[in-house]
């Protein structure tokens, strides 16, 4: 009987990728993974959308599949719920590893538009949602103290970086 075995093409692998991840903030513990799959079994996103599979992503990192990990967009499906991180028997900080991978993907401009849009708003106004005069009227009416419409120091801090 013919057996179907999934093969991984390593021709384009970047074998330094795992080291790169290990040197990125949050990615230090990637080498702890022994592929037990507790992360994937615990992952709520994977139940809904099997494109996201933390064990598979970690394996891909260790195999050097850099392009696939950073450009396919599936790291952005991680909801950062910490289920995997709390349960990893190796004490691997998996949510932090996913954040490190998102940071690396962002550095190579592979970021969902919505995420970038939020980041831009924060840089401009210090908050995701600006508060205007109308909001403040409603706040005062509800007995809440008015809030500043924007926080200039934050814009100043973030633009100076």
């Amino acid at each position: 009987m013919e057996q179907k075995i999934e093969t991984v093409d390593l021709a384009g692998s970047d074998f330094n990728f795992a080291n790169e991840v290990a040197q990125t903030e949050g990615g230090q513990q990637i080498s702890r993974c022994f592929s037990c799959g507790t992360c994937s079994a615990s992952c709520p996103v994977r139940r809904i959308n099997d494109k996201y599979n933390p064990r598979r992503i970690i394996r891909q990192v260790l195999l050097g599949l850099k392009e696939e990990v950073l450009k396919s967009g599936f790291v952005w499906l991680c909801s950062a719920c910490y289920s995997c991180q709390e349960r990893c028997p190796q004490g691997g900080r998996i949510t932090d590893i996913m954040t490190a991978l998102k940071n690396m993907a962002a550095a190579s401009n592979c970021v969902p538009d919505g995420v970038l849009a939020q980041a831009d708003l924060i840089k401009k106004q210090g908050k995701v949602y600006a508060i205007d005069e109308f909001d403040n009227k409603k706040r005062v009416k509800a007995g809440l103290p008015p809030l500043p419409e924007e926080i200039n120091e934050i814009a100043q801090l973030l633009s100076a970086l």
Partner: protein
Amino acid sequence: MKFALFLGCTIPARSRQYEMSARKVAEKLGLVFEDVPGFGCCGFPLKSVDPEKTALLAAWSLSLAEEKGLPVMTLCSACSSNLAEENHRLKHDEKLRRRINEKLARVGKEFRGTTEVKHILRVIHQDLGLAKISETVKNPLTGLKVASHYGCHYLKPSELYDKFDDPENPRSLDQIVAAIGGTPVSYDRLKQCCGGAVLVSDEATALGLTKDKLDAVKASGAEAMTLVCPFCNVMYDNNQKSIETRFAIEYGLPVFYMTQLMGLAMGISSKDLGMNLNSVKTKELIARFAGEDEDDEKKEKKKVKKEKPGPPLQPVVE
């Protein structure tokens, strides 16, 4: 107990009812808030794109609380986890702290590492305690079957929250529901994420997650859901209608902030608790538990109701 109240972005813009009810309930419980106008975004939305700016944003707000000599109280669970994580990172990573402080110096601020961050429900449960909550109850929510949604960042990362509740078997919210006279209901998918954090990158996945839990809560026979985070509220309350349309289902499940339910039990008027700002209608359900602003006739009716013993507490076992 006095705290610097950290509202974050979503609550003032989309969930005023959480802030209104939290302030009213805090007053009854003797918690004092100081408002800090300079508080901005906690940094959570920048975490996936820029860790340095995330630390800087958190450090800015934390430094303002430090100047006041106050611990930070968050209402939003995402603010809670991000501020707690960045506070921890800045306290323990000297190089990062130096870099961030060089930048903060330009606006005359410094992160010193002298404050701590706590979610309001953690303070209420852990520092005030269930007995204190029970003392404030005027209208026990007798017979109201409530499904608690803990969400992710209220409990996790648990190491930074001193494991005040068990992330694998959380109890704190169910215990508060019981303390205000309600009946906590257990349901499948108790620990499942609301999906809110994925909404910007993949709407279908995010709403799929939300639907999955709404299905489970509905199947449990719960009459209402309670939660402690505006992200979760956006998913279960604000988006409930669109999920019903998208998946051709009907839930009609009222979703309350825990502070709204506590306020209701304390006899605070539904207007003061911002109940009219909830997306799913709450009126019918609230009518069973009269508030201060309701007329005497209703109060009389309620008194009769109060004398009936409620059903025994359902054990909360997942």
